[in-house]
């Protein structure tokens, strides 16, 4: 039997959030946390959480499992359960809509701000803009982000200033477009980041790196952005 404690909050009926305990029979299997949630939902149909692909691709089931953010669908119990107990909470720092479902607006606003699309003011070629294999290689470790928000919601700087600090996920994407050889808006992009909050609130504690389910390294990307800002300004 697995002791599962789940964060519950329904703003329509509950005055305050509370933790609810469930006894879940895993039949001795090393289930994924998402499977356990399905078993919880069998016991209480009102339980709300997001999921879609159930294989670590869509990024919709980011949550806090025994204190660490991750995707429930690719996190086996053996990785998180301590002392037969599993505590599930919504991603920290974002407003809770209901139970494990959070309002991601602030996260998406920061993503939108960095203009996550190629900008190119040169005439479009007949077929496509070509890239050398080396230029393409620079995007590895950046483009794979699935916007699950596990990183940004584990970042204290994002907790304190989610409206001003872009956050690790957004900055990883900012760098993805800054170094794309097909993008010509490098200067404008850098100018948009050169304030005391957007990039420089990163204190380099690397919470983001330790939770990214895709094994990406936002801290390194942030360092590269800083170098680019420095090179641009001196």
């Amino acid at each position, binding site marked *: 039997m697995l002791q599962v404690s789940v964060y519950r909050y329904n703003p329509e009926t509950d005055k305050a959030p509370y933790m609810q305990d469930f006894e879940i029979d895993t039949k001795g299997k090393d289930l994924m946390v998402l499977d356990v949630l399905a078993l919880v939902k069998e016991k209480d149909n009102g339980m709300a959480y997001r999921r879609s692909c159930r294989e670590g691709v869509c990024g919709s089931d980011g949550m806090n499992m025994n204190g660490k953010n991750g995707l429930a669908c690719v996190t086996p119990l053996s990785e998180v359960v301590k002392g037969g107990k599993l505590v599930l909470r919504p991603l920290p720092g974002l407003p809770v809509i209901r139970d494990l479902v959070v309002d991601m607006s602030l996260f998406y606003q920061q993503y939108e701000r960095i203009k996550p699309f190629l900008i190119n003011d040169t005439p479009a070629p007949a077929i496509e803009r070509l890239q050398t294999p080396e230029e393409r290689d620079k995007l590895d470790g950046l483009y794979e982000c699935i916007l699950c928000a596990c990183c940004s919601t584990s970042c204290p700087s994002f907790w304190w200033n989610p409206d001003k600090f872009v956050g690790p996920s957004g900055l990883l994407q900012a760098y993805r477009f800054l170094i794309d050889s097909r993008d010509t808006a490098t200067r404008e992009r850098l100018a*948009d980041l050169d*304030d*005391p*909050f957007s990039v*420089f609130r990163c204190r380099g504690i690397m919470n983001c790196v330790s939770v990214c389910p895709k094994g990406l390294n936002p801290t390194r990307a942030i360092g590269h952005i*800083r170098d680019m*800002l420095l090179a641009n300004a001196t």
Partner: protein
Amino acid sequence: MVTNITNFGRSGLSDWLMQRISAVILLAYTLFMVGFFLLNPNLDYAAWSALFQCTLMRIFSLLALLSLAAHAWIGLWTVSTDYMKATGVRLVFQAVVALGLFAYVVWGVQVLWGA
């Protein structure tokens, strides 16, 4: 772009750079001081005042003092914008810090060039 008026320099980059440079200067000053104390175990007033008679030492000390002020301002400004969400509280805190640092710099100049 996020705008600010109370941060130290013109941009986040200049603040960040200033924070690094001032840290290096403070480190150099600290190491120098530690070295000086180690080389002069029986330090007396004459040696101490002779050290600060030297213009180079005064300039170095002033540089360290200004670095300390800049470093403290950038650091405490950051802390205040992280943790103090009420504008009034933040403003009062920043004013107190700014005044305090200003007083220290003026006092420091007085000490260095006074005697």
